[in-house]
């Protein structure tokens, strides 16, 4: 067992102790209740939307709030004085966030397949969930290393939702027309939504799929290389 494995095990222990795993499960149960209330005919249409929100907003919130809380407890700092690589510390949180996202994806995917007659392409759903969660975990990291306090973090998350997540949701609900699509492509949430849609059998142009994947990969890399890794230590040791 290397230190990355030990850090990941520690992450899961804390996710359970801090009741984050249970809260995630609670949100999923809430989605299920809403889906059954909507009814079998319409409910299936909402599954990709609920999953999209889980993979994007919940992941940003999970990483951002978790890091903020740990910084308050000074535990980020004490991890830095262990024989552990910085990359392992950062990856351990990414892995736990991606695991929670995959759990949601599998659960909602099976729910759609078994109870709502949804078309679920698991061979797309699983890798795309991984990519979307990874990118949004990196966005959560970015917010938490750039903002000063918890209010700043909430403001950043709200701004992200209003600027990026809501337009994609409006587009999915046909509130925004097709002419907005190319403008929406600058948003990481829209690329995420296209990939979720594809996983649930919706037809998406191959060019848009390739563009979305490249965009999310490039964004994750850029945020990691130029913001998260360089700023992490500075933020962790600030008292």
């Amino acid at each position, binding site marked *: 067992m290397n*230190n990355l494995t*030990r*850090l990941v095990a*520690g992450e899961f*222990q*804390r996710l359970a*102790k*801090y009741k984050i795993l249970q809260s995630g499960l609670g949100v999923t149960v809430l989605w299920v209740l809403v889906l059954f209330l909507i009814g079998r005919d319409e409910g299936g249409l909402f599954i990709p939307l609920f999953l999209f929100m889980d993979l994007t907003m919940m992941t940003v919130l999970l990483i951002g709030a978790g890091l903020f809380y*740990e910084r308050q*407890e*000074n*535990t980020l*700092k*004490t991890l*830095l*004085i*262990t*024989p*552990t*690589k910085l990359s392992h510390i950062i990856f351990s949180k990414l892995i736990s966030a991606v695991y929670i996202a995959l759990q949601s994806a599998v659960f909602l995917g099976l729910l759609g397949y078994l109870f709502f007659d949804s078309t679920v392409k698991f061979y797309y759903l699983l890798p795309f969930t991984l990519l979307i969660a990874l990118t949004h975990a990196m966005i959560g990291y970015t917010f938490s290393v750039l903002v000063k306090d918890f209010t700043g973090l909430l403001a950043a998350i709200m701004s992200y939702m209003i600027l990026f997540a809501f337009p994609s949701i409006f587009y999915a609900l046909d509130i925004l027309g097709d002419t907005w699509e190319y403008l929406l492509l600058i948003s990481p949430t829209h690329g995420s939504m296209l990939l979720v849609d594809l996983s649930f059998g919706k037809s998406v142009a191959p060019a848009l799929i390739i563009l979305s994947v490249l965009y999310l990969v490039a964004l994750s890399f850029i945020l990691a290389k130029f913001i998260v890794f360089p700023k992490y*230590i500075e933020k962790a*040791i600030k*008292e």
Partner: protein
Amino acid sequence: MAKKIIEVKNLRFTYQKDAVKAVDGIDFTVHEGEIFGLLGPSGAGKSTTQKILIRLLKGYEGSISYFGKDLSTYDNTFYEDIGVGFELPVHFSKLTGAENMAFFSKLYKKQVDVGPLLKRVGLYEDKDRLVGEYSKGMKMRLNFVRALLNDPKVLFLDEVTNGLDPKNARIIKDMIREFKEAGGTVILSTHLMNDVEELCDNIAFISSGKIREIATPRALKLKHGRRIVDVEYQHNGQTTTETFELDDIGNNADFLNLIKTREIETIHSGETSLDDIFIKVTGEQIHE
């Protein structure tokens, strides 16, 4: 001659957003088996120096050698052999004391039995309570145990007795002394004169990022202390005090006459406290 563990030469450091140097050209050497104290008020540069020495702050000027090798050339295995006691509690509040120790302990190759350490600092009975329920003093004691988890060779301690009652502060100080007696080296940052006076072999007075003086506590007292003797005695039913120069006191007729003829209540040599010496050397108050 004891082996050099840390050798700092002309160390300078400026925080990105500050114009003033937090550490401004300091030099010192710490030898094996020594307790070296960095003493100064808040903002003097002692915590910054500690953070540089434990490799949390990079981008410094000057040179630091650790066990004879440039500190910047070490990788993360550097942390296998050091223990760090931070000024503030550094634990997961929703985990118990034992769970916290188990988690951190697993990250090191060398691990000690935590039970005896927890017993020694009086936390064994509370090891299964959530750290969030601990008092500040309990958290600080757990911090100290955390610093010893990997059986370190060198301890970096920052305000280690902060928030502790005298009984628990005594236990921690005894443990630090035992660590030194077992061959360990300690770098202690503090603003508490008592800690320094009781523990340190050498002290560096630090203020405004500069080291103003380095010496043993005894040498500092001899150099800067007042060499006098105060005698309190009864005279006409009242306590009276007279002060004599310590030098050649055996031939001071007035002093000898006084102790022969009066009812002496107390005799004190006029030792200057380290507090007073610090103010004299740096021109700054140490208390926070």
